[in-house]
């Protein structure tokens, strides 16, 4: 089977990869691009830890083929901090204890980042709705919701 030469922007950097049709985007990001911030959990499109930003939309990268990302712009948790300064979403998760084991956190952060672009001033109900594709087994969600609220405030005040 023919392999495909693909090229896409990952966190602002142009990357090229030679992939099989059946390779999933999450595997190429982790194994070929070496960016292991994006995690793999359920592999069945349920848990959301593999969430990345694809052309400005949150998607589960375990359920997107790498060939489908050809020509696109992808952002992962590694793309949030700029010049060593954490993004407001990351600051807020740290400050509000929005994580315990941290396994779900990369997915939570990159989803929260996109959600706050879609809805910069959300209610608690809207945050729950917006993050409903991301599961956490540790926190009970309370502090995650608080963190997103605080991140929204931080982002509004700059």
């Amino acid at each position: 089977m023919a392999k495909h030469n693909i090229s896409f922007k990952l966190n602002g950097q142009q990357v090229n990869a030679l992939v099989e049709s059946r390779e999933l985007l999450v595997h190429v990001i982790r194994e070929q691009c070496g960016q292991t911030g994006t995690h793999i959990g359920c592999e069945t499109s349920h848990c959301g830890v593999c969430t990345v930003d694809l052309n400005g939309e949150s998607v589960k990268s375990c359920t997107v083929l790498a060939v489908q990302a050809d020509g696109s712009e992808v952002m992962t948790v590694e793309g949030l901090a700029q010049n060593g300064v954490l993004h407001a979403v990351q600051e807020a998760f740290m400050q509000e204890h929005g994580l315990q084991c941290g396994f779900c956190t990369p997915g939570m952060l990159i989803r929260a980042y996109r959600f706050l672009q879609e809805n910069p001033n959300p209610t608690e109900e809207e945050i729950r709705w917006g993050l409903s594709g991301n599961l956490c087994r540790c926190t009970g969600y309370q502090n995650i919701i608080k963190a997103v609220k605080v991140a929204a405030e931080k982002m509004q005040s700059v």
Partner: protein
Amino acid sequence: MIPGKFEYHIPTTVDEVVALLGEYGDEAKILAGGHSLLPMMKLRFAEPAHLIDISRIGEIKGIHEQGGTVRIGAMTTENELIASELLQQKCPLIPAVARLIADPQVRNRGTIGGDIAHGDPGNDHPAAMMALDATFVLRGPNGEREVPANGFFLGTYWTDLQQGEIMTEIRVPPFTSGTGYGFNKLKRKTGDFATAASTVVLKLNGNTCADIRITLTNVGPTAFRADEAENILRGQVISEALIEQAAQQVMAVCEPAKDLRGDEEYKTHMAAEMTRRSIRDALARAKG
């Protein structure tokens, strides 16, 4: 988990899709949002040798009104359905259904065409399409045909879509005044398929129910219409007593499969309760 090996094709027109489907026959499958097909391929429930990605075909995306019908491109995503002002005005049932499908990430990828063509009894659009009396536009080697949603769903993963055909468009008659809908879906948690769901579209003439369609999700081998329950209400002034009779009639025709969401008896009772609620909601909305 990764899918088995396949050749990937990325056509940009419907004609190219039809040509590819003709060339590869039953070895080929269409890939839309991939949120039913890719999980099945990971589990080897599906092993197509050729995958035809239709995500870059502009002509089958988007929503517009033409010739008195609302036309939805098969490749329109759930989140696009939710955001559509036109649907909100002309056919609010569709965004209401889309809002309860899966989660934000899945709704960015999953399409209305894929949800319908898949033939999964747990999918939510089929029952909505039957309740709306929608029609589907299918394109194949012999040209285009238009088929009604009522009659399209033949069994689990089995529809009237023939080998070599692609669904291009969904056509829906807009609501007229006096029309109301109800959609109630019981699920265990966000992102779960329905334990049971009921969709109702009804039209009032004064206080009389001039027409009604009642459809059920995930309580049979496919989404289905409860004709006998409809007959109890059509032509009547709908009362609580009649709603109860219709709900009992729905219970008589449910054939759910027992699974982690519950046993046959529980699901049957839930289908009846979802129907009671949907009739009441539709009635309230029809009265405005």
